[in-house]
C-alpha cells in the first residue's frame, strides 16, 4: 500500500509547485468543460473571432475603415486583444464566489482562482491567433521579426488583467453590485477604445474636446491594442510611450489588485 511510497515525490516540493499544478488542472478543467458536447469544439475559438471580424467589417468599413489599410486585420487584432481583457475580467469577477465549495473544504491559495480565469482566457486567445494568421495570409501581410514583442505585450496584459481580476473578484465577494457594474464598465470601455474606429478620427476633428483625447490616450486598452497593432499590422516596434504606458498600467493595476486582495482574502470564507 502506502508504506513503499517514496516521500520525496509524493507531495509538491514548494507552495509554488503546488499552485502551478493546481492552476494547470483548473485551466484544463475549464477548457474541457467549455467544449464538451460541441461538435466543432475548439475550432470555435478560431471561428468566433473570424466571424466577429466579418460582421464588424461589413458594418463598419463604410463608416470608419475607409482610410485604414487592411481594415479587417485592424479589427481582428483590436478585437481579440480587447476580448482577452474583457473575457478574463468577466470570469475573474465570479471566480472567488464560484470557488466557494472549494474554499470551504480545502486549504488552497486563494489567488489561484482569478489567475486561473485569466490564464484560461489566454489559452483561448492563443487559438484566436490562428485566426489572425489566417487573415494575414488572406491579405498577404507577411509576419516580421517584430512579432518577438508579442510575449512582452502578452505578459504585460496578463499582469494587468490579473490585477483587475484580483481586485474585482475580491470586491464582488462583499458587494455583488460590482457584478452588475462591471458589465457597464466594459461597455463604456469598449467604446472608449479604438477597436473598430480610428484614433486619428478623434485627433483630426476639432469638435472633439481635448480631455476625451487625453482619456483615450491614457486608456490602458488603447495602449495594449496599439502595441498589438504595431507588431502585427504596422510591422514596427512599439513606441517608447506605448511601451511605458503598458508597463506602468500593468504594475499599477497589479499592485492595486494585490493590495485589495490581501486586505480582503481572510474574510472570503465568511461571505461566499
Amino acid at each position: 500500500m502506502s508504506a513503499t511510497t517514496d516521500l520525496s515525490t509524493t507531495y509538491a516540493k514548494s507552495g509554488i509547485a503546488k499552485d502551478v499544478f493546481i492552476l494547470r488542472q483548473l485551466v484544463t478543467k475549464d477548457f474541457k468543460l467549455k467544449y464538451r458536447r460541441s461538435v466543432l469544439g475548439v475550432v470555435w475559438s478560431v471561428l468566433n473571432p473570424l466571424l466577429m471580424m466579418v460582421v464588424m467589417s461589413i458594418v463598419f468599413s463604410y463608416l470608419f475603415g475607409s482610410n485604414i489599410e487592411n481594415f479587417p486585420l485592424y479589427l481582428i487584432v483590436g478585437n481579440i486583444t480587447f476580448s482577452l481583457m474583457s473575457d478574463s475580467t468577466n470570469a475573474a469577477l465570479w471566480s472567488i464566489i464560484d470557488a466557494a465549495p472549494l474554499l470551504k473544504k480545502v486549504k488552497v491559495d486563494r489567488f489561484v482562482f482569478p489567475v486561473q480565469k485569466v490564464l484560461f482566457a489566454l489559452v483561448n486567445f492563443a487559438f484566436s491567433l490562428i485566426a489572425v494568421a489566417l487573415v494575414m495570409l488572406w491579405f498577404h501581410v507577411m509576419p516580421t521579426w517584430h512579432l518577438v514583442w508579442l510575449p512582452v505585450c502578452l505578459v504585460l496584459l496578463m499582469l494587468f488583467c490579473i490585477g483587475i481580476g484580483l481586485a474585482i473578484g475580491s470586491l464582488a465577494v462583499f458587494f455583488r453590485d460590482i457584478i452588475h457594474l462591471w458589465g457597464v464598465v466594459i461597455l463604456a470601455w469598449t467604446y472608449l477604445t479604438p477597436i473598430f474606429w480610428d484614433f486619428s478620427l478623434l485627433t483630426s476633428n476639432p469638435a472633439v474636446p481635448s480631455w476625451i483625447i487625453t482619456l483615450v490616450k491614457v486608456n490602458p486598452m488603447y495602449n495594449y491594442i496599439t502595441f498589438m497593432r504595431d507588431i502585427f499590422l504596422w510591422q514596427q516596434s512599439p513606441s517608447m510611450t506605448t511601451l511605458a504606458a503598458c508597463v506602468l498600467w500593468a504594475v499599477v493595476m497589479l499592485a492595486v489588485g494585490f493590495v485589495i486582495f490581501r486586505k480582503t482574502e481572510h474574510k472570503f470564507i465568511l461571505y461566499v
Partner: protein
Amino acid sequence: MAINQTAAPEYAIEVNDVSMVFNMASEQLNSLKEYFIKLARRELFFKEFRALDHVSFKVPKGEVMGLVGTNGSGKSTMLKIIAGVLEPSEGSVVVRGNIAPLIELGAGFDLELTARENIYLNGSLLGYTKEFIDEHLDEIVEFAELRDFMDMPLKNYSSGMVARIAFAIATITEPDVLIVDETLSVGDVFFQEKCERRIQSFIDSGNVTVLFVSHSIEQVERLCTSAVWIERGKQRMIGPVKEVCEAYRNQFN
C-alpha cells in the same frame, strides 16, 4: 495544559489559545448602497458569536487524539482551523507535516468531469505531484473498486461511488497528520470496514498523528489514547481518553 511537556518540537499539532469569532450581521447586506446607508446612519450592527473561546492543546507525534463535544460545540470549526480552511480570529495553530483532511471529502470534484480527471484535480488540491498520481492511479482505482467506470462523468455516479473515489485519493499515501471527521460512514458496510482498516493501519504504523472526531463515544474510546472535550466553544477537559470520556458521559446523568 499539554499532556506531554517533554520534547517540545515533537508535537505534530499545536493549538495555541485559539479563538474564533464570527460576525453575524443582524441583516444580510448585499449591496453597496445598503452598506453606505447603514454606515452613514451608524446602523451597521454585528452580533458576535464565539465559536471557539481560548482553546489550547497539543498533540504529540504519533498520538491518536479524540475530539468530543455535543452538536454545535465547535468541533468542526476546530478541525477546519487545523486543516487551514478557516483562519482563527485569535491565537495560532502549528501543524508539522502533511495533512490528510478527511473532513470534507472530494474537494474540487466537478460532476461534469470523469473520475480520472477528478482524481488529478483533487490530487493537485491535496498537494500531490503529477508523477505521484500517475504512479498511483491504479492503486486508487483498485481501492475504490471502480475500474470500469473511470471514464464516466462523475454526475452518473451514485453518492457512495463518489465518496469511495474521494476516500481513496485522500488516503493513498501515509500522511503525517490525519484528520478524521466521521467520514467513515461512507458507502456500504464492506467499504466502511475497508476504510476503517486503512485508518487503523495508519494508527498502527505509529508515524501518523490522528485527530479523530466522532459522536460515537465508544469509537473514540476504542481508537484514541487521549481526548479533548470542547463544549460551547470552551475547552472543558483534556487528558487520557478514559477520564475525558467518563466525564463527558457523566454530564448527561
